[in-house]
């Protein structure tokens, strides 16, 4: 695990939490949308909170795909579940909402789960056919480079 990869995992966590809360804030300003009034959707997308929320969720999706390209699904999902904790902390300290003891227990359980998975390896060691092709290519070019030297 390099620093850059930790940064990608942090991106998955933060972009998802920030995107969701902005969408939720914007949609509450906007009022409810019904199937019969689809022009409401356009008004919603034009709301700056919703628009920024969508951009952040796109950033979340890009970093999630990035993480899945080099780590197992069963590593990425628990490792990025800290977003739930982040949301609860934002609710408590920025929005001054009441966080019940049951929720604190939830935060403790998630943090425990994250620390469990983070101490293990990120990727199961079995080569995928396509990745293997690439790896062989790298070995060949590295060998060629070595021969030159």
């Amino acid at each position: 695990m390099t620093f850059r990869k930790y940064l990608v995992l942090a991106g998955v966590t933060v972009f998802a939490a920030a995107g969701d809360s902005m969408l939720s804030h914007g949609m509450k300003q906007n009022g409810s949308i019904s199937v019969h009034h689809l022009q409401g959707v356009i008004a919603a997308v034009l709301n700056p909170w919703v628009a920024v929320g969508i951009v952040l969720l796109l950033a979340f999706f890009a970093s999630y795909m990035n993480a899945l390209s080099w780590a197992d699904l069963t590593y990425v999902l628990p490792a990025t579940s800290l977003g739930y904790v982040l949301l609860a902390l934002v609710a408590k300290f920025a929005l001054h909402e009441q966080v019940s003891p049951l929720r604190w227990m939830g935060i403790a359980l998630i943090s425990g789960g994250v620390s469990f998975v983070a101490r293990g390896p990120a990727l199961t060691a079995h080569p995928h056919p396509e990745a293997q092709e690439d790896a062989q290519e790298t070995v060949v070019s590295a060998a060629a480079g070595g021969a030159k030297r």
Partner: protein
Amino acid sequence: MKSLYTWGGILVVVFFSVVGDVVLARAMKQVGDVHDLWERRGLWTVIGRTLGNPNFFFGVAAMALAFFSLLFALSWGDVSLVAPAAASLTFIGNAFAAKFFLHEKVDRRRWIAAVLVAGGVALLAG
């Protein structure tokens, strides 16, 4: 009868979320390590390979179905049951699916993590 609908809806959401996550994970493993690929071939190769991978589109389609079935499930049941139940069962479902379909090594450490996070999410959102 109403609770049967609600739990049926929750299971449909979990099914599509798990399918989406697993298929997207497979797609990205086929694309290969994005960091390496970017350094060797550039960003356009990364984008081209990802968008050219059929599994990527299946995964996105499954995620879209999960989203719409969540909307249906929310109209049948309370948000305080549907959202946490769907999120936490998806964690458990993903651990099983990753083991059987992606052949990930889900050891005791990862099972414990999945169960702890699933429990925590249920408590947080409940």
